[in-house]
C-alpha cells in the first residue's frame, strides 16, 4: 500500500518537473536568457513543491496512525476490558492486532475482541483511504501553486539551493540526534530500572541473578542485580585480550614500520588487516568450537580445572581480533614521530632496537596509550565473541580458566527471548547499556584527546 503511494508520489513529482520546465520555457518566450535560473531549476522547484510537503505529511501520518487507531479501538472496548490493568490491556491489544493481521492468537478470541478487531480493520481502511486522498491532493496543490508561481523573475535556483542546503544541514545533525537518541533511550529505561533496584545496589552489588526476580509480585524485592561480577568478568576477558593484542599488535607495527622491506610490508600489512575485516560472529564460532575445547583439553592434560566456556578462550580470540586495531593505530602514531628523532639516535651509534626502545617508544607513548585506550573500549563493547564463547554464570573470579560473564553477554541474554518490556529484567539490560555507553564514551574521548594532542606536538 505504502509503496504504491510512494510510487504515485514519485510519478507526480517527475511529472511536475517536466511541467515546471516547460512552463519556464513558455514564460520565457523561448529565450532562456530571460529567465533568472536555468529551466531545470524551475522544474526542480515545481517537483519539490509537489513532492516534499506531501512526503512530510505522509511520514507524520504513517508514524501516528497506528497509535491513534489503537487509542480509538481501546476507547471503544467494552468497560470490562477497558478497565483492565495496563499490562493485561496490553495483552488484549496484542490479541486484537494479531487478529487483524491474521496471526495466531494466544487464547480463543472472545466476541468483544473479535468486534474490536473488526473495528480496528475498519478504522484502518478509513485511515488509508483518507491518506491517499490527502497525499494526492496535497501533491497536486503544491504542483498547481508552484506552476502558477513560475515567472522569469522567480529566483528558482536560489529556492532550490536553499532546500538542498537545508537537506545537507539536516543530514549533518543526524549524528547528534543519534547520540541524543542513544542517551535518552538508555537513560529513560535505566531510570525506570533504578526505581526498582537502587543504583548503589546495581553498581556495587556482588550478586547477579536476574532470573530470580521474574515473578511480578516479586519485583524489586529479592532480585539480585549487583553488576560487580559482570564488570569483573568484562575486565578479565578484556584484560586477557589486551595481553594478547598489545604486545603482538605493537611489535607488528614496529616491525612493519622500522624493519620490514617495502615489499614485505605491502604483503604483510593487508594480510594482517584481514583480521579486522572478519565478522565477529566468525571469531565467536572459532572461539566456542575450536579454541575453548582445545584449551580445555590442554588444561585437563595438565591437571587443571578448566570450564568449557573459559574466560581464557574468549579473551584470546578477542585479543586476536583486536591485533590489527592496535597495530594500525600504533603504526600511525609511530610514523608521526619525525625522522629527525631516529636520525639523531642513529648518528650517536644506536642500533635500531635501541632507537626504538629508548627514543621512538617514549616519544610515541602518549599516542600509543591513546590507541590502547581505543582498543580497550573496543574490547569492552565486543559482543558476539563473548556471547558465543563466554558463559552466562556471573562468577566473581579472577581465574582465567573459570567461566565468567560480561556486560554485553547479559544485555543480549536479557533482551533476547520473550518477556514483558517493562520488567526489571529487560530494564536491567538498558542500565547495563548505560554503563557500557558511558565507559566507552569516556575512554574514547580521552583517547581521541590524547592522540590529537600527540599529533599536534609533532606538527
Amino acid at each position, binding site marked *: 500500500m505504502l509503496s504504491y503511494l510512494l510510487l504515485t508520489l514519485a510519478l507526480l513529482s517527475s511529472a511536475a518537473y517536466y511541467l515546471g520546465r516547460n512552463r519556464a520555457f513558455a514564460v520565457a518566450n523561448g529565450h532562456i536568457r530571460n529567465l533568472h535560473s536555468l529551466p531545470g531549476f524551475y522544474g526542480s522547484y515545481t517537483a519539490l513543491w509537489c513532492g516534499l510537503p506531501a512526503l512530510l505529511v505522509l511520514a507524520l501520518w504513517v508514524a501516528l496512525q497506528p497509535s491513534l487507531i489503537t487509542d480509538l479501538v481501546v476507547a471503544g472496548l467494552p468497560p470490562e476490558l477497558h478497565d483492565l490493568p495496563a499490562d493485561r490491556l496490553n495483552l488484549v491489544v496484542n490479541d486484537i492486532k494479531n487478529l487483524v493481521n491474521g496471526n495466531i492468537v494466544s487464547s480463543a478470541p472472545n466476541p468483544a475482541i473479535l468486534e474490536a478487531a473488526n473495528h480496528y480493520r475498519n478504522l484502518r481502511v478509513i485511515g488509508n483511504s483518507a491518506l491517499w486522498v490527502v497525499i494526492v491532493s496535497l501533491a497536486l496543490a503544491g504542483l498547481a501553486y508552484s506552476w502558477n508561481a513560475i515567472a522569469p523573475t522567480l529566483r528558482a535556483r536560489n529556492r532550490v539551493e536553499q532546500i538542498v542546503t537545508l537537506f545537507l544541514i539536516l543530514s549533518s545533525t543526524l549524528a547528534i540526534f543519534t547520540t541524543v537518541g542513544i542517551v535518552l533511550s538508555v537513560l529513560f529505561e535505566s531510570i525506570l530500572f533504578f526505581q526498582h533496584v537502587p543504583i548503589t545496589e546495581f553498581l556495587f552489588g556482588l550478586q547477579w541473578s536476574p532470573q530470580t526476580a521474574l515473578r511480578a509480585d516479586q519485583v524489586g524485592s529479592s532480585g539480585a542485580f549487583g553488576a560487580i561480577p559482570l564488570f569483573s568478568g568484562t575486565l578479565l576477558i578484556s584484560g586477557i585480550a589486551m595481553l594478547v593484542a598489545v604486545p603482538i599488535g605493537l611489535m607488528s607495527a614496529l616491525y612493519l614500520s622500522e624493519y620490514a*622491506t*617495502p615489499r614485505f610490508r605491502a604483503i604483510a600489512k593487508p594480510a594482517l588487516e584481514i583480521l579486522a575485516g572478519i565478522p565477529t560472529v566468525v571469531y565467536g564460532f572459532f572461539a566456542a568450537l575450536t579454541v575453548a575445547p582445545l584449551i580445555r583439553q590442554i588444561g585437563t592434560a595438565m591437571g587443571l580445572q578448566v570450564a568449557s566456556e573459559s574466560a581464557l578462550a574468549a579473551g584470546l580470540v578477542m585479543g586476536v581480533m583486536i591485533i590489527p586495531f592496535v597495530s594500525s593505530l600504533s603504526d600511525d602514531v609511530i610514523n608521526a614521530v*619525525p625522522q*629527525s*628523532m*631516529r*636520525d*639523531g*639516535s*642513529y*648518528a*650517536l*651509534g*644506536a*642500533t635500531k632496537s*635501541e632507537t626504538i626502545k*629508548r*627514543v621512538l617508544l*617514549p*616519544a610515541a607513548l602518549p599516542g600509543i596509550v591513546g590507541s590502547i585506550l581505543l582498543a580497550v573500549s573496543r574490547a569492552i563493547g565486543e559482543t558476539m565473541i563473548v556471547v558465543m564463547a563466554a558463559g552466562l554464570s556471573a562468577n566473581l573470579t579472577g581465574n582465567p580458566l573459570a567461566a565468567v560473564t560480561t556486560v554485553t553477554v547479559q544485555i543480549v541474554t536479557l533482551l533476547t527471548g520473550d518477556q514483558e518490556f517493562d520488567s526489571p529484567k529487560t530494564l536491567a539490560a538498558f542500565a547495563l547499556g548505560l554503563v557500557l555507553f558511558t565507559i566507552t564514551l569516556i575512554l574514547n574521548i580521552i583517547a581521541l584527546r590524547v592522540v590529537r594532542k600527540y599529533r599536534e606536538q609533532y606538527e
Partner: protein
Amino acid sequence: MSTTAIATDLGLKPAATAATASRSVSSVEVTDYDNRQTVGKIVVDNAKMICRGVNVYYGEKQAIKNVSLDIGANEVIAFIGPSGCGKSTFLRCLNRMNDTITTCRVTGQIKLDDDDVYDKSIDVVQLRARVGMVFQKPNPFPKSIYENVAYGPRIHGMVNTKAELDDLVRDSLERAGLIKEVEKRLNEPGTSLSGGQQQRLCIARAIAVHPEVILMDEPCSALDPIATAKIEELIDELRENYTIVIVTHSMQQAARVSQRTAYFHLGDLIEIGETDQIFTNPKHKLTEDYITGRFG
C-alpha cells in the same frame, strides 16, 4: 647561462652523461683521483679521514661524482656550494647515515684512520660512535636535558656508575657551553630550551660519546644570529679535541670557522684549499662565481 652550460664550457661532464660515466668509475678508480678536475690540494699531512673516488647514487641518479679529499686531524673543514650540490649527501657518507635510505648506493673508498668505513668488517654502530653528527634542525629527544646527553654514554656502556655518568654529562654540557644556562634545570625536557640552546644540547649530546670526528650539517641554518655566533665560537673551541666537518651555505660562516674549504657543484668537488685562499683568490671560475654571489 645555465649552470649545466657553464659546466660544459669548462670541460666538466654534464649531468646527463653521469649514468654512463659512473659504471666505469665504480669498479676502478681509487687511484684515479689525480686525474680529476678538482682544483687545489686534496691531500693533507695528518689526515684523519681519506676519501677517494667516492660516488653516490640515489637509484639511477648520481648525486656525488668521483670525489676525493682528505680531512685533517683537528681541523675544521667547510663544505660549501649551492643547494643540491651534494655537500650534505657527501657529509652523510662519512658516518654512513645514508645507509638508512634504501635506494642509496656508495662506491669508492672512505677511510677513518686505517679503517675503511664501507668495509664489511666495520660496524656501523662503532663507526657512528666515532664519527658523531649534528643536524640542520635541532633534534633533541623528547627526554630531559640530562637524559639527552646521557643517551650516548648509556647505550655504549661508557660509564659504570651514576656518579661517572653525572660527571660525563656535566663535562659535555660544559664543553658545549651550555652548563651555566641549564645547570638548575637538568630534569626539564630538552624541547623546553630555545633553538640555539637546543642545538648546543645536540652538540653536547654528540661530544658526550667522545667521537673523533663531528659532522655538522648546516648547524646554524635554523638559528638567529646571536645563537649562531655562540655555536661558531663553540666550534672553534672544539677544534682542539675533535676533527670537525661543517656543511654551510653561509660563506661568511665558512670563512669564520674553517681552516680549509671545499666547494661542491652539481655533485662534483670543484675546488678545495685553505679557506683564506678560496675566499680571496679562488682558482676556479665556478668557485669565483659562487663566492662573488653570481649564483647560489
